[in-house]
């Protein structure tokens, strides 16, 4: 019974794969993301962003007159499963591969996509992803190697802090940010007064905050996810920590403000990609997203959306649906919001697949994000 069972099931998968590849008109995309497991929130936002963008593009006639179509596969937040699913997706020869969001899963799958010669637009933020010379991998957001220097510069130049406590979440996102910023602090001779790892989903930050208090730093750098950001902000306020709190998108987002209330006031950070950006197009995106899904997306929702518009703009630039030429066409390409409103803000992709875009330094004042500085694109 066993081999028949097995073979027929695998045959079925092969056949459905083949059927998808054969039908002509729509442009096939494949998304592999963290739809269950530890990264489910990340992956679901990313997926929803993709679906929203595709729906909008298709309702306006598609790309070069062809509709977009995407298949979603769940990586269970597990690199081994991600590899299997990407393999499956690539066997069906998609136009472009989307995802995954976890840097570990990106590392496993990027060589496969490169070998197949298919461009991969992903959500990972770890610095090393785009330094390995992969010609098919593209970011949808700043890598930590480009966002952290801006934060460190702000802490040094504007806050004149000499010692900083770092609070980070112990996963590849948090650890990557912590390592990048520590490197920058070393350049400015800023001392790391306390180096605190926290767990994803941690609810009680009393111990961490008491350690921060004991270290008496000039500033605290907080690099944890939105929900934990809110909890630690409350605890910092409760224990009377008054030094500046600096972070990234995950510290100063609207969601954090909603969850932390008063405690969020005074938090500041660098925001590369946020649904709260003071840009009309971004606000419009957010409204559309909330209307469809009933919640405010985090930056992963925005990333999924942008990935689709990157595909649209690049394909229209090439004037044809050419999977092999896609990566070349996107390298060095500047997509302007004037020509392609879906990209929301002008973005340039360099030879490594890194994105360059405007950024902001914001502070929470009375429950509202206030932009303190606009950080221009680097390569204007």
């Amino acid at each position, binding site marked *: 019974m066993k081999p028949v069972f097995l073979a027929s099931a695998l045959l079925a998968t092969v056949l459905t794969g083949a059927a998808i590849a054969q039908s002509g008109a729509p442009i096939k995309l494949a998304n592999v993301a963290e739809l269950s497991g530890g990264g489910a929130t990340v992956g679901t936002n990313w997926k929803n962003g993709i679906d929203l963008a595709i729906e909008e593009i298709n309702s306006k006639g598609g790309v070069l007159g062809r509709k977009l179509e995407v298949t979603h596969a769940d990586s269970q937040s597990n690199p081994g499963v991600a590899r299997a699913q990407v393999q499956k997706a690539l066997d069906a020869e998609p136009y472009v591969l989307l995802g995954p969001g976890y840097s570990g899963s990106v590392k496993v799958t990027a060589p496969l996509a490169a070998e197949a010669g298919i461009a991969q637009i992903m959500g990972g933020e770890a610095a090393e992803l785009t330094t390995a010379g992969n010609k098919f991998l593209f970011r949808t957001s700043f890598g930590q190697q480009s966002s952290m220097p801006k934060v460190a510069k702000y802490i040094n130049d504007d806050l004149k802090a000499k010692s900083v406590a770092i609070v980070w979440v112990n996963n590849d996102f948090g650890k990557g940010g912590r390592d990048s910023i520590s490197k920058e602090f070393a350049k400015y001779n800023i001392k790391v007064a306390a180096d605190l790892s926290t767990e994803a989903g941690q609810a009680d930050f*009393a111990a961490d905050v008491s*350690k921060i*208090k004991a270290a008496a730093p000039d500033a605290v750098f907080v690099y944890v996810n939105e929900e934990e950001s809110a909890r630690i902000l409350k605890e910092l306020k409760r224990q009377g920590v008054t030094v500046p709190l600096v972070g990234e998108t995950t510290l100063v987002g609207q969601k954090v403000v909603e969850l932390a209330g008063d405690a969020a006031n005074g938090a500041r950070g660098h925001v590369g990609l946020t649904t709260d950006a003071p840009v009309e197009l971004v606000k419009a995106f957010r409204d559309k997203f909330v209307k469809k899904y009933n919640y405010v997306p985090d930056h992963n929702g925005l990333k999924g959306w942008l990935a689709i518009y990157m595909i649209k703009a690049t394909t229209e630039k090439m004037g044809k649906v050419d999977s092999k030429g896609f990566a070349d066409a996107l390298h060095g390409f500047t997509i302007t919001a004037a020509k392609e409103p879906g990209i929301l803000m002008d973005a340039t992709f360099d030879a490594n697949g890194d994105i360059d875009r405007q950024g902001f330094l914001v502070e929470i004042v009375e429950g509202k994000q206030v932009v303190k500085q606009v950080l221009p694109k680097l390569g204007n």
Partner: protein
Amino acid sequence: MSNLLDLLIAGLATGAIYAIVAVGFTLLWQTSQTINFAQGEFVMLPAFLMLAVMHAGAPFWVAIVIGIALSLLLLGLGFKLLLVDPMLRHGVLPLAIATMALAIGIKEAAKQFWSAEASPFPSIIPGGDITIFGRIVALQSIGVLVLAILAVLGLTTLLNRTSIGHQMQAAAQNPTVARIVGVPVERMILLTFLINAFLVALASLLITPIYLAKFSNGEVLGQAAFIAAIVGGFNQVRGAIAGGLLIGVVDNLSAAYVSTQYRAAVPLVLLIAIILFRPQGMMGRPEERTV
């Protein structure tokens, strides 16, 4: 040293939650040899049930009542009739595995039918802080602690002071003899499942304002409660309470004084030490071998 008080209070508040969940855990084990690996998900779910009722437009208190009723029905009665009863006579392990699968099912259902996002959840305890001994303490921590203690006191009174309690204990300790002396053993076992369902609903109500309603909440809680139950002694209600409080406090103290990276390790080392030196748990009684 002044920090110590902060850490203790925060740790006790977290530990009180673990304690409630661990008590239910040991009750099920005692009366029906059920190791419920879905206990954490049982705590996660009632909040979603309440949110769904509120979503339909009902006020918070109605949602609480309906939420508790639903969890009695689903996590108490339904769990016992549909899963435990058909499997119990086949031994501990298949049932334990089935509850693992149940945990996956509940988690995925919450994600699929609600959202992968964390949703805010109203608190029955007012927000804000109060000052005790010059320390600023969240009202929420105090409230959670007080309610948890009340629940546990209520339960121990029920078990030790009422005739139903005595019957339940008899049913748990020696069902055969209990049956002979006329204790309705089946009904008593059902009652423990209902009590567990009530306790998880209460825990859900207390922690969700802090944890936010999220499908993955059960993972951490279930494991913590399991460890608390073992540390305290798998076969004693008051052991589970002590185990829960201890785990909460130890977790905080180890994060503050040992290592944040290894904070989860300290309670586990404690667990291993207790197994080696006091295998019946801190407050448990030694189990008789039945062979």
